[in-house]
C-alpha cells in the first residue's frame, strides 16, 4: 500500500520541531507500524538522509518501549494494542498519517519520536516496590490470596509502563500508570506494610515530575494497551486520601 506520512522531526530536546512529509510506497499490508517505519528508514539511509528516530525493543507488546502518537492517538488509539502490534491493514490505501511523539513536559523529546520516559522510573523509585527479600518462588499456598484480589492485582500488574496514558490525557497526567502500580502492590499481602508510604511517595514523585492533574475524562483507559480500567484511579485516590489523613494525624 502507499501512504503519506507527516512525521515530527526534532534534532534534540531544545531544538524546535516540525512535521516533515514522506511518501511510504509499496508497504506490505501485513507489516507492523514499526516495520513500516523501518522500510521508510532504510530508504532514507540509502538516499543519505537522517533516519527517523523512534523507540522500540521487544516488538511483541510486552516491554513498553514503543510509543508514537498516530493521528493524535497514542498507539493508534485502538486500545489493547501497542504500536509494535498495530498492523498496516488497519489503515487505508493513500491515507495520510500524522506521527508525533508522546507529548508531555515530563517526557522531553530525545530525538524525533523518541522521548525520555525516565520520569516513570522516578515514580517507581518513590514507592513502586516491596522491600522484603522474597528469595526464590515461594510455595503457592503459603500466602493465600483471595481470587478476586489476585485477579485485580494481576490485571493491574499488566501495565508495561509505556506512557500512552500520559500521551492521551488532555492534561498529560500519569494517574493511570501510578494507579496501576499502586493497585497491583497495595492489593497483595506482601505490599501491605508499605501501602501508605508507597502511595504518598509515588504521588509526590509524580507531582514533582510535572505531570498534569486528572480531570476524570478517561482518555488514558481508552488507549491503554493493557486495558487498565479507570477504576484503578478511584482506588489510587482512595488510598492516597486515607494515607494523607493518617500521615496528618499520626505522622
Amino acid at each position: 500500500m502507499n501512504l503519506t506520512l507527516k512525521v515530527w522531526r526534532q534534532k534534540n530536546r531544545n531544538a524546535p520541531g516540525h512535521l516533515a512529509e514522506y511518501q511510504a510506497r509499496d508497504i506490505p499490508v501485513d507489516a507492523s507500524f514499526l516495520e513500516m517505519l523501518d522500510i521508510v528508514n532504510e530508504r532514507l539511509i540509502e538516499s543519505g538522509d537522517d533516519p527517523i528516530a523512534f523507540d522500540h525493543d521487544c516488538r511483541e507488546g510486552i516491554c513498553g518501549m514503543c510509543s508514537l502518537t498516530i493521528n493524535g492517538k497514542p498507539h493508534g488509539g485502538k486500545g489493547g494494542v501497542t504500536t509494535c502490534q498495530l498492523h498496516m491493514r488497519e489503515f487505508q490505501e493513500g491515507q495520510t498519517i500524522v506521527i508525533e511523539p508522546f507529548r508531555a513536559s515530563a517526557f522531553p523529546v530525545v530525538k524525533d519520536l523518541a522521548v525520555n520516559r525516565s520520569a516513570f522510573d522516578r515514580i517507581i523509585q518513590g514507592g513502586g516496590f516491596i522491600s522484603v527479600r522474597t528469595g526464590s518462588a515461594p510455595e503457592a499456598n503459603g500466602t493465600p490470596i483471595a481470587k478476586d484480589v489476585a485477579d485485580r492485582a494481576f490485571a493491574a500488574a499488566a501495565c508495561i509502563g509505556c506512557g500512552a496514558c500520559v500521551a492521551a490525557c488532555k492534561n498529560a497526567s500519569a494517574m493511570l500508570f501510578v494507579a496501576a502500580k499502586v493497585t497491583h502492590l497495595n492489593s497483595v499481602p506482601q505490599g501491605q506494610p508499605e501501602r501508605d508510604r508507597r502511595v504518598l511517595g509515588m504521588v509526590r514523585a509524580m507531582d514533582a515530575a510535572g505531570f498534569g492533574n486528572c480531570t476524570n475524562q478517561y482518555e488514558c483507559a481508552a488507549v491503554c494497551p493493557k486495558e487498565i480500567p479507570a477504576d484503578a484511579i478511584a482506588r489510587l485516590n482512595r488510598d492516597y486520601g486515607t494515607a494523607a489523613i493518617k500521615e496528618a494525624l499520626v505522622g
Partner: protein
Amino acid sequence: MKALYLAVIRFYASSIGKKMIVALSALGLLAFLLGHLAGNLLIFSGPDALNAYAAKLHGLGVFLWVPRLGLLGLVGVHIMATLHLAAQNRAARPQEYVADATLRATRSSRMMVLSGLTILAFIIYHLLHFTVGNLHGFHDDNGAYRLADGSMNVYKMMVVAFGVWFNSLFYLVALTLLGSHLSHGVSSLFQTLGFTTPRTRPLYTLVGRLFAVAICGGFASIPVAVLAGFLK
C-alpha cells in the same frame, strides 16, 4: 495546630489533594443548590408560602451571614483550586499535538472551565439582580415590593424579574451550562473521592445526569412558568 496547618498545605500542594478539595467544596455547593431549589419551588405554592419562607430566612438576622460566608468560602476555594489545576495542566503539555484526537472525553468534561466561569458570572449577576442591585426598583423606599408587615414581597420580585425576557434568557443559558457542569461534575466527584468501582460507575454516571437534569429543570421551571403566564 501548626502540624495540622502544614498537613493541609501539603495536601493542597498535591494533585490528588487539590482535586479532593475541589470535590469537597463542590459537595457543599451541591447541598446549597438542593436547598435553594427546594425553597424557590415554594413559588408554585403561591405568594404566602414563598414569602413566609423568605421572611424566616431574613429572620435569622446576622446569623444569615454564617451560610452566606460559608458559601462564599466554598466558591472561593473551588475556583482557586480548579484554576490552579487548570494552569498546571496547561504547563504539563507545552507543545500541543498537531493532530489532536478525542476518544472518550465527553463535551461537558471538556468545558468545565468555561461552564464554571459562566456560573461565576451568573452568580455575580444573580446577587446584583436580587440581593444587592436595584435594577427593577426592588429596594426603592416607596414600598412597592414590601408586604404589609414591612418584609420583602419576594413572590412579586420574582414574577417581575422573570417577566423581562432577556433576563430569563440569561438565566436559562446559565442554567444549561450549570447542567453541563454538573453532568460531568457529579459523577466525577465519586471518582475523585475514591468511591467508584467497576460495578458502581454506570450508576454514578446516571446519578450525575439525573442530578443535573433535576437541578436545572427545577430552577428553569420558574422563569419558564412566569414567561408562559402561569405565575403572575
